[in-house]
């Protein structure tokens, strides 16, 4: 067998590895093995690529290549190891964005290499230029879009949808410009036009993401992840590389499906997630009118401790506030204490609790909360009317009854945990500020609701003490 055959064979095995990796990642039992299999497949493909003559004989460029890889690994490993579980979504956004950037650079540079080749007579074939344009366009949108998503999740800018006058007009102009420049690039094979294309694509990524509300950003990251996959596939076309096409397309296709499943878990259509920023105006005014004016019932830790200690059934509903306060361990301590007293306790997990679907399960698993104490929303809701206390820890939107009964609300239609059906509702909240979606919660003003203000970890610690002495 020639070297080329060996390379193609290893690429084929790597592609099979990626397919099985995705399959494994879809089942709780094999998820970790799936991920490791994916890493092994990738490592094999990279190793064999070093044997390719054009790479092997690259001389000083081979050294530069290894230097870039070492720098990348030295940055990436500690970043990925040290990132707090709560900041996971941002981290995924960054790793996705740089992947999109790399794909765009591959397509762009492959075009430079192609057009600077002396052997080239006339222009490159039209399909070659189309492949390059698609790679640059999709890769750049993913890059700049992920960057904005990161900034939003890190709360460097407001998580609310950002709208500005003339937004539709600007979107239309950028869209038309991309189509126009794209056609012109195909016809002329001009490098400067391709650079204009690249810049326009970066702008498109920014204006695409800005109007998307913070609560929807995880769905957006999933979509951008799928985009990066497609950009990688486009690079694969430009390089005639089967492995890149297969891996990129796998991610692109599965990513679109995953994105749809995620938006479904929030009870929304994908189109609604992406283009619903118009609703934000209603949101803002609604928030101002409702808040502050009405009285709420604030309790002491002792009152609530007694309420919990003498309850028969307590449902803990954790949200992002629990995660930021790193209070998952204290929550477990409280749950264990109550269970020792004979109280029935379980956790009701909303599919999008935390910042991403499944995020809360990961956080609670980190605190060694046994799986059988976690109940998914559909399993938990029928039990809510028989619960004595719904203890809402740092959650807000996921228990907001407006999702059921206020058709004008931006979260209308989102499935919620019916905390309002419990006999008593206790909110542990930092302040009266609305949740991530930026909307008021009627449940806070309900007479059966008691609020305990403060950092989730502090208040939970106080509750543990209160239950002990109750």
């Amino acid at each position: 067998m020639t070297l080329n055959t060996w390379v193609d064979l290893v690429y084929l095995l790597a592609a099979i590895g990626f397919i099985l990796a995705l399959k494994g990642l879809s089942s709780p039992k094999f998820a970790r093995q799936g991920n490791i299999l994916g890493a092994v497949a990738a490592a094999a493909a990279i190793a064999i690529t070093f044997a390719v003559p054009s790479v092997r004989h690259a001389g000083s460029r081979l050294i530069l290549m290894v230097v870039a890889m070492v720098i990348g690994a030295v940055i990436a490993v500690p970043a990925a190891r040290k990132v707090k579980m709560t900041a996971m979504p941002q981290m995924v956004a960054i790793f996705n964005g740089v992947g999109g950037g790399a794909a765009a650079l591959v397509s762009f540079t492959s075009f430079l290499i192609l057009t600077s080749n002396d052997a080239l007579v006339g222009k490159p074939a039209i399909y070659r230029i189309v492949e390059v344009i698609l790679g640059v366009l999709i890769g750049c949108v993913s890059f700049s879009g992920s960057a904005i998503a990161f900034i939003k999740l890190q709360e460097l800018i407001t998580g609310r949808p950002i709208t500005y006058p003339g937004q539709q007009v600007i979107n239309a102009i950028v869209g038309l410009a991309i189509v126009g420049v794209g056609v012109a690039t195909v016809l002329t094979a001009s490098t400067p036009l391709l650079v204009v294309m690249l810049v326009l694509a970066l702008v498109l990524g920014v204006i695409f993401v800005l109007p998307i509300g913070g609560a929807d950003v995880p769905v957006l990251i999933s979509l951008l992840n799928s985009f990066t996959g497609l950009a990688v596939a486009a690079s694969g076309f430009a390089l005639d590389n089967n492995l890149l096409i297969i891996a990129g397309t796998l991610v692109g296709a599965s990513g679109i499906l995953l994105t749809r499943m995620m938006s479904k878990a929030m009870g929304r259509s994908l189109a609604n997630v992406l283009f619903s920023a118009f609703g934000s105006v209603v949101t803002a005014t609604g928030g101002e009118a409702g808040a502050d004016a009405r009285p709420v019932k604030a309790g002491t830790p002792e009152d609530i401790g007694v309420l919990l200690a003498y309850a028969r059934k307590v449902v803990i509903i954790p949200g992002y506030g629990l995660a930021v306060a790193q209070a998952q361990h204290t929550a477990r301590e409280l749950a264990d204490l109550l269970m020792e007293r004979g109280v029935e306790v379980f956790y009701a997990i909303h599919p999008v609790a935390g910042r991403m679907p499944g995020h809360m399960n990961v956080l609670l698993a980190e605190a060694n909360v046994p799986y059988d104490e976690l109940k998914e929303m559909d399993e938990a809701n029928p039990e809510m009317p028989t619960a004595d206390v719904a203890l809402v820890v740092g959650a807000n939107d996921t228990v907001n009854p407006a999702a059921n009964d206020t058709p004008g609300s931006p979260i209308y239609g989102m499935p919620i945990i019916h905390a309002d059906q419990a006999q008593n509702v206790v909110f542990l909240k930092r302040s009266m500020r609305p949740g991530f979606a930026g909307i008021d919660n009627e449940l806070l003003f309900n007479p059966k609701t008691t609020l305990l203000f403060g950092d989730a970890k502090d208040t939970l610690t106080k509750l543990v003490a209160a239950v002990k002495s109750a």
Partner: protein
Amino acid sequence: MNVGIIELLTIFVLAAFVGLEVVSKVPSILHTPLMSGSNAIHGIILVGTMYIMGSAHGGVQVTLAFFAVLLATLNIVGGFVVTDRMLEMFKAKPSDRAAKADRPSDGDTGGAPS
């Protein structure tokens, strides 16, 4: 029409169907790890950046290729490591159940509030 491009398109279409099929039954608790894992898989663009570096000529192309390799390495290494960290949480399942049966208030590791 070039034969090569049709072959590549065939691969593309088949891979798209496999991609849709393979994740069709994922439970919602695995949405985030699956997203993160597929994020790592598209880091295989690193292979593409290696070819680009191999055929780059002149300062501009080499510089672009250098950054391409760097970004792709961040994607693939960071992606797999971060996914593994998320999935670490899922492995303790059976021992956790066992621990629960006889634990007074604390399990093996996670009890200390820190």
